[in-house]
């Protein structure tokens, strides 16, 4: 039987050694009130990641620099997220623990032409969850705001185009600008092309990042310390060995950047 058949089995899996991973990241490069910033390129543990270096989409894995190292599963087993204790000081924000499924960069913010992307398809480890899509910046765009849109292939193998999303003037490196999917869509299989509606004045460097959300962890104003989340609360999402785990900072009314630190536990269960 896949998963944890009983509470006792879950407890037994949580009690095993070698199931933990520690994270401690410096501040992301940019913070904007109510926005989202990526820790992908921030220093710390795991070490800083980098821009994908490919306009064509690439499917990152646990081996991609920037991904959180976590223990491999035993043969015939799969890891799950079984506990999250995560925070960063301060208050009034949330942290997201993401599995990075697909990413690209090299898109110019100073072009209104169709910019082909193509490349790899999203791995099947994301087939169970709703996907989230972001336009991630690795260097700032120019002073003219613009709208972008991505043409993509959805969960039913249909070509779709996202509603337009706004890229603010001079949006900085590290920003993750949410890209809505077309109504009714909940997953992306692959990227096709990008188009902006105005030149920003600077090419910058941006690309699309597709993720599945494993957990949202907040910091309470009154205690300013992390709240431990258990396996049942988290839903024990599967974390296959090739998962590319990283973090994002989701701001509240303040755009002050914060570090991220915590511990994640990965109990294993039968894969099938």
């Amino acid at each position, binding site marked *: 039987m896949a998963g944890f058949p009983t509470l006792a089995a879950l407890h037994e899996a949580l009690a095993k050694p070698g199931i933990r991973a520690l994270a401690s990241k410096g501040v992301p490069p940019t913070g904007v009130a109510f926005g989202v910033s990526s820790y992908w390129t921030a220093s710390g543990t795991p070490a800083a990641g980098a821009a994908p270096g490919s306009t064509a989409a690439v499917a990152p894995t646990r081996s991609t620099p920037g991904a959180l190292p976590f223990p491999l599963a035993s043969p015939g087993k799969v890891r799950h997220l079984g506990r999250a204790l995560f925070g960063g000081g301060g208050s009034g924000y949330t942290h997201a623990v993401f599995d990075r499924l697909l990413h690209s960069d090299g898109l110019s913010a100073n072009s209104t032409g169709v910019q082909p992307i193509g490349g790899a398809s999203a791995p099947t480890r994301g087939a169970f969850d*709703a996907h989230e899509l972001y336009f991630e910046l690795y260097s700032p765009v120019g002073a003219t705001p613009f709208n972008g849109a991505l043409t993509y292939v959805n969960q039913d193998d249909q070509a779709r185009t996202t509603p337009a999303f706004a890229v603010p003037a001079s949006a900085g490196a590290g920003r993750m600008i949410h890209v809505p999917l077309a109504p009714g869509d909940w997953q992306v299989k692959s990227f096709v092309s990008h188009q902006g509606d105005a030149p920003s004045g600077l090419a910058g460097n941006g690309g699309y990042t597709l993720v599945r959300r494993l957990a949202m962890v*907040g910091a309470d104003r009154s205690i300013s310390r992390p709240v431990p989340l258990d396996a049942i609360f988290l839903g024990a999402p599967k974390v296959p060995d090739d998962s590319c785990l990283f973090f994002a900072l989701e701001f509240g009314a303040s755009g002050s950047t914060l570090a991220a630190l915590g511990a994640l536990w990965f109990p294993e269960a039968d894969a099938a």
Partner: protein
Amino acid sequence: MSTFPDVNALVAALPARGAYVEKDSIASVANVHMTLWRAPGRPGLGEKPGSAAGLACSRLTQGAGPLFPVSGGKRNHCLSLTAFLSQPGTVQVVDRVWHSDSLSLNANAPQAVNSVALPARAGGGTGLELALEIWTPGGVTALSPSASYTDPVSGAGRTATMAAGAVPGSAIAGRFFPFTLQGTDRGVSSVQTCTTGLSGVAGEGGLVLYRPLFELVLPSSTSTAYNGFSETGLFEIPDDACLALLDLTATATSGKVRVEYKLVQAVPG
């Protein structure tokens, strides 16, 4: 027998499936109901139905929160809800079952609604609540709207009401005014007419039938609320539910709202 007779059954139903909703702050009024249906965010702006007879809503309606299809006789149950709100307030998660618009806020005569058939998950209307939603502000005169409806038990010819002047002058778009059903009525199976009264400007209103699912109370600004299975009670979410958010905040804006929810799927016991 319960779907989850013990915690072992719940653990065996894992892993859960996760989804996320985020709404930007919009203009609001302190301590009153607001709908976030037309607030920007993810999902984006909700569908505008385009008629007084309205449209039935489902998980595929534009603006509905993500919900996963089920198979094999399974049903979705809410395992946990994590919510962030950038200011003190209460967020209510609802299943938006039917909605309409095209009602004048400047008419004394009853306006025909004759709601379209409700979806099967409405269960005949028992437990549904009825509200007036402001799409475009009317004039400066306060209103006391009423609606004629059919109750699943009492039948047709029932009247839903609000207190005198419940809808203040120039109520802003997104204000959401629940009706009081007649007598001991406990639901609405259809709506026949709506009488708004004279505000001075037509504006545009609509009616909504909805089923409250859960409330998230965040009494401290910039706080996060965690609700595990013992708090959610593993409430069931119909597989075609149109998930939407209402909120009541203590300030003149709705605040940034983030809600992550985890769903387990299981066959009814």
